[in-house]
């Protein structure tokens, strides 16, 4: 066991972990942050995407010890200070960008990473960026709409029903 210390959603945390302890298991277990999900074991589904030092990473493909000293942000840290939904979260609700909710935390974290680097992405850029996030419920239609809307862009007429 080794001790690891990091900041998660702005709060300093530490704990004893094994070498093999994944970041996602540290978040879900000792920290009780169960919003980050595990949907596969080949690092493809993206349900576990979190931000480490501002960058989207798959928390199932990174060891907790590798996040030593890092700033980690999870879905639990995405709401506004007053607890209301953040811009991306609100857009997902407004545009029905989620159904069962399981892929949603990863989708929101990926969307946030995209908009940080590319504040006005095109539809094609959004779709390409979500290559590592699988959703089985929505057919992606409303997720793409939500991200377009969250970026302050018009949602195309075809997508507006």
């Amino acid at each position: 066991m080794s001790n690891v210390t990091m900041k998660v959603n702005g709060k300093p945390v530490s704990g004893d972990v094994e070498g093999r302890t994944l970041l996602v298991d540290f978040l879900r277990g000792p920290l009780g942050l169960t919003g980050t999900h595990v949907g596969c074991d080949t690092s493809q589904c993206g349900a576990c995407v979190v931000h480490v030092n501002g960058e989207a990473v798959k928390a199932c493909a990174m060891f907790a010890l590798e996040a030593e000293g890092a700033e980690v942000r999870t879905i639990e840290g995405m709401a506004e200070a007053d607890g209301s939904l953040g811009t991306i979260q609100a857009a997902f609700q407004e545009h029905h960008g989620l159904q069962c909710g399981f892929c949603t935390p990863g989708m929101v974290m990926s969307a946030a990473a995209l908009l940080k680097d590319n504040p006005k992405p095109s539809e094609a850029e959004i779709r390409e960026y979500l290559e590592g996030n699988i959703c089985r419920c929505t057919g992606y239609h409303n997720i793409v709409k939500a991200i377009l809307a969250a970026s302050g862009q018009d949602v195309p007429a075809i997508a507006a029903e």
Partner: protein
Amino acid sequence: MPKDHGIGASTKRREDVRFLTGKGRYTDDININGQAYAWFVRSDVAHGTLNGVDTADAAAMPGVLRIFTGADFEAVGGIPCGWQVTDRKGEVMLEPRHPVLAHGKVRHVGDPIAVVVAETLEQARDAAEAVVPDITELEPVLDMKAAVQGGPLVHDEIGSNLCYDWGFVEENKEAVDAAIKGAHHVTTLELVNNRLIANPMEPRVAVGDYAQHDDSSTLYTTSQNPHVIRLLMGAFVLGIPEHKLRVVAPDVGGGFGTKIFHYAEEAFVTFAAKELKRAVKWTATRSEAFISDAHGRDHVTKIELALDADGHFLALRTDTYANMGAYLSTFAPSVPTWLHGTLMAGNYKTPLIYVNVKAVFTNTVPVDAYRGAGRPEATFQLERVIDKAAREMGVDPIELRRKNFITEFPYATPVAVEYDTGDYHATMDKLLEIADVAGFDARLAKSKANGKLRGLGMNCYIEACGIAPSNLVGQLGARAGLYESATVRVNATGGLVVMTGSHSHGQGHETSFPQVIAEMIGIDENMVEIVHGDTANTPMGMGTYGSRSLAVGGSAMVRATEKIIAKAKKIAAHILEASDADIELKDGSFTVAGTDKSLAWGDVCLAAYVPHNYPLADLEPGLEETAFYDPANFTYPSGAYACEVEVDPETGKVTIERFAAADDFGNIVNPMIVDGQVHGGIAQGIGQALMEGASYDEAGQLVSGSYMDYTMPRADDLPFYTVDHSCQTPCTHNPLGVKGCGEAGAIGSPPSVVNAVVDALQRAGHTNVTHIDMPLSPARVWAAMQG
């Protein structure tokens, strides 16, 4: 002006708030003090004699609490099958035993052999590697036709791999044969409906708990229907009476059918928790899900459509082999029969239909219902053969369909169902409009200029959902009723809690159900709370699948609310000193007709619980009612879909350029949610058509056993869809006039995709390509173009 509340409003989903903030509570988020962890040792061969299991070394490893094998489950029942099909000769299907853990034989890769329960998950997994099953490998049988032609037996004790040979309608057979023999034109198509893996994003999880103080068991599980699991597991497997067994399905991360069924892992953790006197948790890895979740589809079909010289359909004959896999999963026998054969009429006036289905055991993962379940298989073959017939006869495929549309309702098909309502011309008209079919030629020219092939495919569909009248399905072999239930509890201050047997795993019941009740009473939607997913606090219900939640569960809720309103009116009448017949309820207020005397909803609710001025002699206090609703018929959503594709002639890659769906779902409660359901269904249908396919090698290993090889549709594989549900012919036999929308997209979309690709290739001169089996991967399409 769209409504902003109540029935017909696109109310934003209240459940989204917890899902968007990481506060959802899925089964894997549940941890019970002192819980142990289970790891399943699964067969890595497809077929073999299990001579024994050596657990000695493993049992001595750190943290191991106990290792269970098939022998531990000899005293309990096997996993039951919930549907018994009767074959052409009137004999019941062959029904093999399905042990919780393999005993004597292993029958598919993934068949559970033993389970290690240990203090930690990694300890359980370490020890599982030291468990040594002694297996003598046997030749596996994978091909269905080989299986029924003397292939190795999957189940020695039943003496055959043919589960049943079903004919429907058997009395029509001779007339169908004769009509086909004498027809002007017969189009024949042989096709495969590819095996799919449902892949809800949340893998299955089961946590068993046992309370010593009252000898009760609790199972937390990723299920679409906790009451069904409680009944099947309690009564048939473990012998736990229902009053000592609670099943909780909390937030569930998608189901798509594969979370309907009762699985061995659920029975195991419940059993083990009682044995060990501590909670036991099992969480599937995705790799494990691929070889333990029931698969879907997997039909091999020959279909023949007979037409007269004018293109009228005369007769239809189908011959299908349906893969059951190694065991009968919960509803497996019903899928290729009553959910498939009864839909073969489609939207058309075909007078004579005969469907033969041979259900076959193979050394593969069990196959059961997956989104659409039987209806996609029916729709695909019918709509593909019609397209092929149109091409062969040189007629427009839309006109050929229109010519044969059913136009008068109710309509009794030759395959035993009666469609109550529909307007197939209307959905086709709407489709042509929203798909901009008129603009196709211009888009075709553009594609050509870019060196791409372009094709347009269309199809219609009909489905039967709102499953189902219990007495009817009982006659057809169901071992369960298919009603739904709701208890509406009105609190003293006027808020309502609705406890429903329906289960939401993405469908948005927590939002859409209150829209209905709020409209009935005339109160704010936020005064209504939906409780579901826990057998301890909901009435016996049958759960969510077959697009039944609103049509059946919603109807139960309406009936219970009607009882509430009737009683509330009596209370109001007493207080207002009027006759109950004169009481009107509007906008949350009870009024005596023709007067200004009124009473607010909340006042009546309070009176029910503080019955001072109350007709106690005639009426019990309180305001809580339960209704069970058993539908009189299936509901029959229908529609028309169009797909436009581009094909890269150099690589065979198919790109979905446009996709349009015109559906008739009857009345709509929440259009936003309905759109979302259709989008998701379309994506799964496109997935089936172009990408997805479970593939076994000759040894019975699942080659497509992870997301590295099983292609899940991603955002960049799919376009925006144009969907419309303005054509509405309300269902005539349920109180909401609703039909159900959950499966339509998955049923309606595969044929239009394949029709479009074939169209693109035909237009490019590949006139020998009349069919390509799904999934139409780049490699397959390229191969088809090579001649």
